[in-house]
Structures are given as C-alpha cells and as structure tokens.
C-alpha cells in the first residue's frame, strides 16, 4: 500500500527529486516532440498526396469492398475506391479545417478577451455573460445549428466550429488579462501615462500569449472531431472530396462486413487528434507554473 502514496515519501526520496524533476521535464518535452513529429508527418502526407497515393481517390479501382491485401493495403470501400489513397488525400480536409477554424476563433476570441479583461466593468460583465451562455451550449449542437443554417463546405464548417471555440479563447485570455492587469509593472506603465493600446501590446499580450498554444492544440483536436461528427451526421462536406469523417459516414452501415473502410479513417482521426493533444499536454506541463511551483517547494523543503 505504501507505493500508492509516493508523494508522501518525498522527504525520503528527497535527494532523488532533482533528477525526478529533470526527468519529468524531459518526458514532457519528449511528448511534445512526438506530437509535433506526428502532425508534421500528416501534413507532409497531405502535401505529397499526388505523389504517394497509389491510386486516384475518387476512381473505382477494384471490386467494391475488397479486403485489405495485395495492391490494396487497406482494402477498398463500397464504391471500389482504394481506402489508403482516400486516407492520404483525406488528410487535407482536417488540416484545412484546423487552419481555418482555429484562426477564426483566435482572431475573434483573442481581441475580445483582451478588451474584456483589460477594460472590465459593465462591458466585461456583458461579454462574460454572452460567452458563458455560448459555452454552456453543447458544442456539437451549436455547430449543427450553424452548419444547418449556412450549409456545407470547408469554410462554412470551419465557421461553425470556430463559433464553438470563440468562448474558450475568450475565457482563458480574459481571466489571464484580468490577473496580469493587477501586476505592478502594468500599473506602473499606466501610471507613467503609457497609452492603453501600448500597455496591452507591450506588457499584457506577451504575458498572456503563453496560454495560446495550449488552447490552440485542444481547439485543433476538437475541431477535427467536430468536423468528423458533423460529417457523420450528414452536415459536413459535399460528397466527392476525400475526407476521413466522410468516409466513415459513407461506410459505417457496413462496418460488420467491411470493417477496414471505416476502421482506418477513424484510426487516422484518432492519431491526429491524439498527437495534437500530446503537444498541448506537454506544453501545459512545461508552461503551467501552478503545478510546477509545488514541485520546487517540496524540493526546497526536502
């Protein structure tokens, strides 16, 4: 039972804590690098799709529902298209969605959060109320509403996803700004008569910016999942574009017999989203001082 409560034996293993700490930081670092490597590999795969895909993704190249093997590593789907080629080409859609959706949420959420946190007062209260109500709404449902209103297509879907994520950027940035605002250096700059905009640009934004990569990676992973979910429900992209989510929606009814046509696209979604989360988790470990401080404290007192 003693092993269950390792933290309790810190004074005993105190001398080892230094190496523990180093190790934890390198493990966090390794996790970030694994995530980055996987994401880069998928980006490369998407860019080189015309050269590395063995077949055209939109052409019938064999009998429908051919099992994996031979020239078709991952088999063929119900239309006789090569699953592997569709996966290679299909990487482009989630990546495009990530790029567009996260940029949209960041570009809208960041300035509103900065403003709300820095100005405070009534404006802040109203913005927090609005953002919190959007936040309390089920994300996929909100995306369904937006997608049902504005229709299909990469830009539309990205917008639907961006709407869901604006409150997340807003909340994190706003709360961070509200606490940074109290810092002596910000008050000093204000007292010296520095214009607000320069105070925000010079002192507030750089301090707040460190929380952006973490939200970004979570946001990116979630946008891939939301896009796949929307497509699964039939609200995503128009047919014809190879897309992992779309391939699942096309083939899942035959999952029992033709598992490969559904399994592989889903597996790639999982790989991409997990890699993105690794980046975020690792960065969070490195950047989050709240959890790290205790570690130093224990070391100091050991």
């Amino acid at each position, binding site marked *: 039972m003693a092993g269950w409560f*390792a933290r309790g034996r810190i004074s005993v293993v105190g001398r080892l804590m230094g190496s523990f700490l180093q190790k934890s930081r390198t493990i966090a670092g390794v996790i970030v690098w694994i995530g980055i490597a996987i994401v880069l590999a998928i980006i490369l795969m998407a860019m080189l799709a015309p050269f590395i895909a063995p077949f055209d993704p939109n052409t019938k190249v064999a009998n429908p529902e051919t099992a994996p093997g031979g020239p078709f590593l991952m088999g063929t789907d119900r239309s006789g298209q090569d699953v592997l080629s569709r996966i290679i080409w299909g990487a482009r859609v989630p990546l495009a969605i990530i790029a567009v959706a996260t940029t949209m949420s960041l570009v809208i959420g960041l300035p509103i959060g900065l403003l709300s946190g820095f100005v405070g007062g009534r404006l802040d209260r109203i913005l927090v109320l609005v953002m919190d109500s959007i936040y309390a709404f089920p994300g996929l449902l909100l995306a369904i509403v937006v997608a049902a*209103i504005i229709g299909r297509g990469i830009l539309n879907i990205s917008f639907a996803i961006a709407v869901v994520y604006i409150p997340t950027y807003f909340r994190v940035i706003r709360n961070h700004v509200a606490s940074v605002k109290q810092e002596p250096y910000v008050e000093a700059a204000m007292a010296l008569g520095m214009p607000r905009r320069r105070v925000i640009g010079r002192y507030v934004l750089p301090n707040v910016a460190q929380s952006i990569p973490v939200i970004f990676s979570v946001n990116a992973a979630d946008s891939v999942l939301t896009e796949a979910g929307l497509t699964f429900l039939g609200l995503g992209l128009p047919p014809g574009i190879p897309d992992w989510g779309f391939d699942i929606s096309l083939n899942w009814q035959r999952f029992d017999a033709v598992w490969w046509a559904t399994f592989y696209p*889903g597996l790639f979604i999982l790989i991409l989203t997990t890699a993105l989360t690794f980046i975020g988790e690792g960065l969070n470990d490195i950047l989050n001082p709240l959890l790290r401080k205790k570690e130093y404290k224990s070391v100091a007192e050991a």
Partner: protein
Amino acid sequence: MAGSSASLRAYVIARVILMVPMLLLLLTFTFLLLRVAPGDPVNAIYGERGNPQVIDQIKRELGLYDPLYVQYFTYLRSVFTGNMGTSILTSKPVIEEVQDRMPATLELTFSSMIVASVLGIGLGTFAGTRRDRPADYGTRIFAAMAYNIPIFWFGLILKLIFGLWLGWLPVSGRFSPRLSPPPHVTGLYTIDSLLALDLRAFVDSVAHLILPSLTLGIVLAGFFIRITRVNVIQAMGSDFVEAARARGIPEQAVFFQHALKNALVPVITTMGLTFALLFSGAILTETVFSFEGMGRFVFLAISYRDYPAIQGAVVYYGILMVVISLFIDILNAFVDPRIRY
C-alpha cells in the same frame, strides 16, 4: 445546522423561481434566432419538389405568414397551457415526443456519467498519486486517447467486438422487441421494470444500455481523469496536507480524509459543467446505437427547421441544466462545509 439547511432551502427556492424568467429569455432568443435564420420547416420537409400551392396552404395553416408578434404570443400561450406546440415534422405534440425520448437520454447520460465518474476519479487519483512515474504517463496517454477518439467510431468498434463478434450484448435500440416493455411509470425502462418486478425486462434494458454508456462514458472519462489528476496533485502538495503529515497522521488517512475531499470539490463542479459535452456525445452515440433519445430528436428537428420541436427541446434542455447545476451546488455544499448559501 438547522440554520444552514434553512438557508440552503431558501437558496434552492430562489433558484427555482429564477428559472421562470431565465427560460422565458431562452425561449424568446431561440424563437427569434429561428425566424432570423434562413429556411423554414415546410420547405425543409417538403423540399423543392413540393407543390407550391400545397406548401402555401400548409404555411398558412401553421401560421407562418402571421406577423412575428402574433406567432410569438400564440406560441407562448401553448407553452403556458403546457403542451409546447405540435411538431411540424411528426404532427405529434412536442410534449409527447419529449416524454417518449427524454427517458432514453436520461438513462444514457446517467449511466455514462457513472462510467465516467468511476473511471475518471479512479484513474485520475491513481495517476495523481504517482505523479511523473510510468503509471502516471500511461494513464495520461490513455486519457488523451479516450478524450480524442471519434465517439461514433469508438461506438462502432465496441458494437462490432461485443455485439457482433462475441455476441454478448445487443447493439441497437433500448429494448428487445420480443419482450413486452414494462408498464409506463417513469418512462425509464430500467426503473419501470424494477417497479414491475420484471427481472428479465430489467436485465434486457440494462444490457441495451451497456455499450452506449461505455462509449460515451469512456470518452468523457478521458476528461475527468485530467481534472481529477490535476486537483489531486494540487491537494497533495497543499499546506493542509503537509500539516496533516507533520501531525503524524498515516498517509492513507491523509489522502482519504484530507486530500481527496478537497480535490473533489472542483471535480464535482466540472462534472456538472460537462453536461454540455455529454449531450454533444449523446447525439452521435444515439445515432450509432439507434437509441431514440433527445439527441436524435434535436438533430432531426434542427435539420428540418421544426420550430416548435426545437423550442420545446431548448426549454427542456434549459430546465435540465438548471436542475443539474442545482444538484451540483447541493452536492458541493455537503462535501465542503465551507460552502453555504
């Protein structure tokens, strides 16, 4: 003690009374949003092939040509008389549709919440007490993957393995068609069959719940593990834990009586907030398992611009949110004696 429970009661009553204006606002907002959005139910249901004259006629009957304020007050009247209007898509009163489907979603979300809490708090504590050791990293990788798995794909895999290959569990619906469902009391098959003392029906309804709630619960557990782990780590490093250790209290008692209780307050609060997440997942899970619940209902209602159905669903969703947050507040007041209302 009597004083604090009286104030808790006053707080609950105030929250319930506040619910009325809040729901009214929510309803008005949804009403306006739906009218501003392009598309209307009749066109969505009958499509472009529909006879324009027939469509015109139906629209007139539904009152879609009336001025907005007339539509609004007609609708409000139906809300206050309690029937929430009639679904345009199914021509059934919205309240009947909801009564049919809400129990399914309640069963699904409640059982998923159990799966997620057990896994999340268990594994989160496991990882948090072994910080930075292999067990911690393993658990975190599991959590990251669980949270990031496409939920419908995960559901399909479980369905394939446990339903089709192993044949252990049913893969769709809420109840076997060969059994007769228990008499309707609550609409929750599990509870109704227990009330009717029908053991076979109970086992059947639970069996139908297992795969959907594992699907939804494991995905949600990924999130709970993270939250629990962070809070356990923070509590274990806090001054009161060190003070307890300094007093020579056994480590196990320090953990269960001091650290865990404090770690759980933010965890419980977060669990209440994840209801939104749960509902998003429910839409997809219900689709995969042909589980006719509110998720499917809302999705269809939105796709067909079924105004009364969407508005009705929003009202019930609002009530549910208030009830859940109230429940969380009360739960926290019990766990943490500092919280008083």
